[in-house]
């Protein structure tokens, strides 16, 4: 229990330091932190579903974009909290539609469906804007400073980690671990596979939608090509994989070094950015299939260090 209290204290302290950051940082640093927190949250939300079920979702940016667009469309009509609520509901609706039609089936249908989902939503939004509203871009004028966006993201990131921590220790988490190990056994134990997966997917998607919604005011001008940029899905995936998608802290810790690396790469090698990203991604899939922490742990164990019990991790589905 001492250890538990210690971890909580560190968590609270880190949160407090991060919350105070806007008072010490200039605009550039704060912008960097906002981007970083956005990806920490996206990667953690991705890991919450895909890391625990083994269903690879390639549709992060579809939900992200829906959130951003909901804010762009409603920011002059509704008060801000309601806008966020509507955005979350839109993300929830999309997640349920995707999940209900694919999560009952083999994982590959889910992957295929999510692979083109962002493109589908982008085309639908473009079509709607051109044919119904008659414009393509939208402006967002809101009374929110960067520090407000930052605090909202920080709260969302903390909430995501807390929810993930709770789920890992709940009946749902136990059910997920059984599903990840063996779906047939899980079904025989009376676990409702489809409902469990659907609940988790909906939760993860709503978080992703909210990240898009909260970050939207940063752009001021929004059009489909900007908010449905497939690189977002890609980066989220790489970060979660590097840290280890099935771990609580894995995606977040994978996001920090990679976000900084990507910032540096896009500033110095704008033309070769996606080639370098792709190569890095392939390298991670090859060298660290379960993330850098699992690798380190395994390495320490085989080196014959102290004998300690390594917690059973939810492996990627066999």
């Amino acid at each position, binding site marked *: 229990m001492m250890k538990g209290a210690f971890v909580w204290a560190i968590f609270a302290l880190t949160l407090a330091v991060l919350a105070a950051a806007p008072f010490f940082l200039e605009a550039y640093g704060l912008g960097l932190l906002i981007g970083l927190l956005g990806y920490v949250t996206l990667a953690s939300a991705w890991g919450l579903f895909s890391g625990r079920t*083994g269903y*690879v979702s*390639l549709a992060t940016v579809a939900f992200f974009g829906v959130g951003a667009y909901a804010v762009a469309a409603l920011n002059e009509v509704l008060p801000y909290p309601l806008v966020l609520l509507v955005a979350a509901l839109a993300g929830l609706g999309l997640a349920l539609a995707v999940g209900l*039609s*694919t999560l009952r*089936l083999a*994982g*590959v*249908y889910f*992957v*295929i*469906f999510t*692979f*083109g989902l962002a*493109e*589908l939503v982008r*085309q*639908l939004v*473009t*079509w709607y804007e*051109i*044919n119904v509203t008659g414009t393509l871009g939208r402006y967002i004028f809101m009374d929110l400073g960067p520090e407000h966006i930052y605090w909202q993201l920080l709260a969302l990131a903390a909430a995501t980690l807390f929810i993930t921590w709770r789920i890992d220790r709940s009946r749902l988490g136990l059910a997920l671990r059984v599903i990840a190990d063996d779906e047939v056994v899980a079904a025989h134990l009376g676990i409702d596979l489809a409902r469990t997966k659907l609940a988790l997917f909906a939760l993860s998607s709503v978080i992703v939608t909210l990240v898009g919604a909260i970050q939207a005011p940063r752009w001021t001008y929004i059009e489909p090509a900007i908010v449905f940029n*497939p690189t977002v899905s*890609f980066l989220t*995936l790489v970060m979660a*994989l590097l840290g280890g998608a099935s771990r609580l802290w894995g995606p977040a810790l994978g996001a920090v070094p990679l976000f900084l690396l990507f910032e540096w790469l896009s500033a110095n090698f704008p*033309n*070769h*950015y*996606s*080639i*370098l*990203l*792709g*190569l*890095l*991604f*392939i390298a991670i*899939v*090859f060298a660290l*299939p379960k993330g850098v922490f699992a690798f380190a742990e395994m390495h320490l164990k085989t080196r014959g260090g102290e004998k300690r019990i390594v917690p059973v991790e939810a492996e*990627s*589905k*066999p």
Partner: protein
Amino acid sequence: MLVTTIINGLVLGGTYALLAMGLTIQYGIARIMNLAYGETIIAAAFLAFVLNSTLGVAPLVSLLVAAPAGFALSYLIYGLMLHPLVKRSKGRASLEVDSILATFGLLFVIQGVMLVFFGGNYISYTYMNFGIDILGSSVAANRLTALILALVLGGGLYLLLTRTLWGTALRAVSVAPQSAPLVGIDADRAARFAFALGGALATCGGVVISMYQTFTASSGVIFTMKALIVVILGGVGNLAGALSAGLLLGLVETLVATYVSPGLTLAAVYFIFLGVLLWRPSGLFGRAR
């Protein structure tokens, strides 16, 4: 108007069928879910464009370069990148996840290379751009050639797989990968070959597409998407299914583009996909598993 639409739809459908056949071979026999498939297609389209605009080579001739290049490149990709993953994987599902992730990375690498060389502009060139009269309506000659090419290549492949011993061995691996070695089939070699063959079909499809469509360095994703949907519609590993589903998809898309709105074609495709997932997940022509 309607006849032109239907013929254009069949042209598009023939191309989709060709593309989907390559993907269904890669996925059905080599067990690799290749998300970089569309990038192979676009790379071949660029090849045809460059050969045509710099050396004046006709696309039909560039096929002779594109197909072997696609075969060799895919063979190499399988050997270097995917074979280690196959060796490492413990089961079908873990290979699926690994191959999805690895080819997702590959997608960005190939796309990045094409962006460096060609930028993000829409590309097209004119080739055989004159009308041919069919049933009283004019159809562009390049589209007609594309349709014939798709049918010849697809038909040839179908005969190859169903009428030769070699093709039978490939299909055996697709049906029962564990049992195939028992009758003396080298499953590993078959997988490598199937993946390369699929790549060759993709490059053929890319050349065909470049004859009548504009494309950009980043349009590969859409082609992968459509090819995947055709594969699911037709049933994984089912060539005749891929052919008919491809034609169906092309027809629907062209009809929607002509009579509803060109902006809603992908929505129509997804609508069909959704219907099949809910109604017959094993494919329109597949047997229930």
